[in-house]
């Protein structure tokens, strides 16, 4: 067959696909989720199987960050209340830890089922209180929380298989737990389920801006007939958290939150003999290689940083993109975030909801300003933001250098810092050049490269051609200053028992 004339062998120049950007041509009708969140006007402490008023009689408002309206009044615990909670948990421990594992498991199964029964109600409450889009609380937070209870329920009578060869294991006793505001119900499930399955009792403090779903879960614990004192919730801000972690009756502390507070807890508990697990901050690298399926990668990068407004400790906040595709990835990212819908979290079409609090919004603004001052190039889509409430546009900072603060500090908001690299070695070096080590993402078509990267990256979770996936069976937790201990899977159980 004769060769075709060379002149005809033209390839089309690489040109980005035409944009489909309709701007404000059409507006969406509002599509609010209308399920009743069944909120109370006032939430008391949950101690010893009862809702009880705080000794001080003081309450603080929990507001909806989407419109700054007060949702409910939350009890402010004093140290006396924390004492009562620990006393109840201490009383409940002997019977609960001796209860046959299969029976403990049944309670956890009940909790999982009851949560599934009331899933939509919880999803709405979570969105109102925390500001996350309803599609996330409905499709991720609540079902995943239920799944965690269900998964751990089955472990409760099979723990001898979790610690093969251990001479003996026993629960710690009373566990003090402090959780953050980014996944209020899910973090609560991550903490409660393994603690209860292994026979511990719990005093837990939710974050002060997001206490409502914890106290709604207390209703479920009552419906499940969980013995009084096995789980106790004390609400309030940092002082209450400090009272929980410093309480002499706490045999173990489990904390999820910032690295700064994690260090404080570690210092405060030094010499106390308390066991400790910490799930702290991150500054994850999401690494896109030239051979990656680019559209899929762009979608994953967007999910990696804008999921839950970027209020995710494992968020892919540092995009490392190989030079050959840097331009096209950046162009596609800009296109993609132009069509993200920022606004009322309760609207079913919303992609990015409200920033959790004014303080957090201020922190994000401050760090983005520093990023621009340091020389990064800012891109934000021109979307309209609601007038009331705390919102921040999805933001891309390109041309970021390793030394920039936005490449080193956790912003905990919808802000993506973009760096480039040439070789695999450079990607590894840059990805690991951080005090954190919670998670990382790798986008490539090459399976062997995925395994090479996964081997070299100093991170507790590595996602390949995906990002921000979670599963009760999959251990989660950090290297280095992202903390220690694992949550989920067989590995998460070990942190809730004393092994010999």
């Amino acid at each position, binding site marked *: 067959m004769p060769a075709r004339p060379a002149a005809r062998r033209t390839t089309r120049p690489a040109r980005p696909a035409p944009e489909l950007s309709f701007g404000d041509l059409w507006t969406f009708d509002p599509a609010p989720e209308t399920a009743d969140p069944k909120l109370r006007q006032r939430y008391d402490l949950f101690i010893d199987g009862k809702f009880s008023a705080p000794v001080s009689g003081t309450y603080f408002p929990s507001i909806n960050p989407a419109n700054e309206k007060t949702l409910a009044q939350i009890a402010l615990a004093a140290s006396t209340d924390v004492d009562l909670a620990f006393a109840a948990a201490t009383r409940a421990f002997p019977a609960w830890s001796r209860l046959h594992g299969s029976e403990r498991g049944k309670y956890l199964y009940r909790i999982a089922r009851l949560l599934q029964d009331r899933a939509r109600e919880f999803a709405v409450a979570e969105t109102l209180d925390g500001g996350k889009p309803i599609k996330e609380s409905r499709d991720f937070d609540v079902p995943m929380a239920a799944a965690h209870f269900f998964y751990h329920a089955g472990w409760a009578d099979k723990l001898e298989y979790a610690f093969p060869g251990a001479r003996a294991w026993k629960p710690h006793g009373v566990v003090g737990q402090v959780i953050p505001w980014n996944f209020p119900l899910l973090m609560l499930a991550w903490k409660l389920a393994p603690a209860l399955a292994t026979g511990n009792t719990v005093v837990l403090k939710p974050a002060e801006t997001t206490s409502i779903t914890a106290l709604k879960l207390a209703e479920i614990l009552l419906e499940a007939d969980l013995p009084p004192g096995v789980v106790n919730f004390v609400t309030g801000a940092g002082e209450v958290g400090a009272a929980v972690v410093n309480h002499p009756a706490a045999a173990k502390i489990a904390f999820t939150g910032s690295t700064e507070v994690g260090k404080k807890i570690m*210092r405060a508990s030094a010499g106390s003999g308390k066991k400790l697990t910490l799930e702290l901050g991150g500054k994850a690298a999401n690494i896109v290689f030239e051979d990656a399926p680019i559209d899929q990668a762009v979608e994953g990068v967007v999910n990696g940083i804008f999921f839950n407004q970027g209020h995710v400790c494992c968020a892919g906040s540092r995009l490392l993109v190989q030079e050959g595709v840097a331009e096209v990835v950046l162009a596609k990212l800009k296109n993609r975030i132009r069509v993200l819908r920022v606004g009322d979290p309760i609207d079913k079409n919303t992609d990015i909801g409200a920033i959790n609090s004014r303080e957090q919004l201020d922190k994000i603004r401050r760090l983005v300003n520093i990023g621009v001052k340091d020389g990064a190039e800012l891109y934000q889509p021109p979307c309209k933001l609601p007038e009331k409430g705390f919102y921040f546009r999805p933001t891309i900072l390109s041309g970021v250098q390793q030394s920039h603060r936005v490449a080193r500090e956790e912003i905990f908001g919808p802000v993506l810092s973009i760096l480039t690299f040439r070789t695999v070695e450079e990607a590894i070096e840059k990805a690991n050049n951080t005090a954190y080590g919670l998670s990382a993402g790798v986008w490539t078509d090459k399976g062997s490269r995925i395994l090479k990267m996964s081997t070299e990256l100093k991170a507790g979770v590595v996602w390949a051609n995906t990002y921000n996936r979670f599963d009760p069976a999959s251990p989660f937790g950090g290297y280095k200053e992202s903390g220690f201990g694992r949550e989920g899977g067989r590995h998460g159980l070990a942190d809730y028992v004393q092994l010999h």
Partner: protein
Amino acid sequence: MARLIITKTPKVYVGGAFIRSESGRTFPLKDSLGAFVGHVPQCTRKDLRNAVEAAARAGVGWARRTAFNRSQILYRLAEMMEARATELAETIMLGGTAAAAAKAEVSASVDRLIYYAGWADKFEQVLGNVNPVSGPYFNFTVTEPMGVIGLIAPHEAPLLALVSLFAPAIVSGNAVVALASEAQPYPAIILGEMLATSDLPGGVVNLLTGYRKELLPTFATHQHFRGIGGVANADERKLLQSGAAESIKRVKLTPAEDHFDWMADAAQSLYAIRDWLEFKTTWHPIGS
């Protein structure tokens, strides 16, 4: 005419070399009857930092060795110790331990190495996991060594406790800087000679002699230690744990007041290996 014997100058094994302290300081070592034995290096914070550097350099290659290779090297160390068992027992007897007990401690130390040597290519099979996630991912959790681990040996069981502390750390690929028994440092000095002839790469195990009071603050705060373990009293635990907070080190300390029985079965465990492991979970896509 009686021949005057050649006495050995005590040196510590750091970075694959036998060194005196950079400071030139020593402290006199006497046996239980008060007779002079030698001048033991009184290692300084600078020596400790140098040892950490050596460990960090050696650790990378050590972690990349195959598990089977690490297994054989630990076994080789046991061979070296068995061959010089009598000499090792004598170093323990310096501290006043009776001959039979010293011999038993050496035997237990050799057996402990054999125990951990056998784990090198097996602990992953017990501690790692494939996780059944809901989605098209092959999700698996593997172990990794943490990096450089600092270990504080107790006063008692100067050989057995030291071996029981470092063996489960290095078997997975960690590198170690250990502070030998302050009261009975001599077994660690002689152990260094066996480490040097065991095929263990220099720098994987670094042994310092000196004063706890002087060195523990640096163990607590040195950023390159990823973990701190060993035996410590209440004040030392507080010091080590609060220092560890600055860089979120993993801390696993046995209270000195518990007088842990290093001869007991409980002194060797898979879970002592687990103490110095990180767990990494990978989500690998399944698809074409």
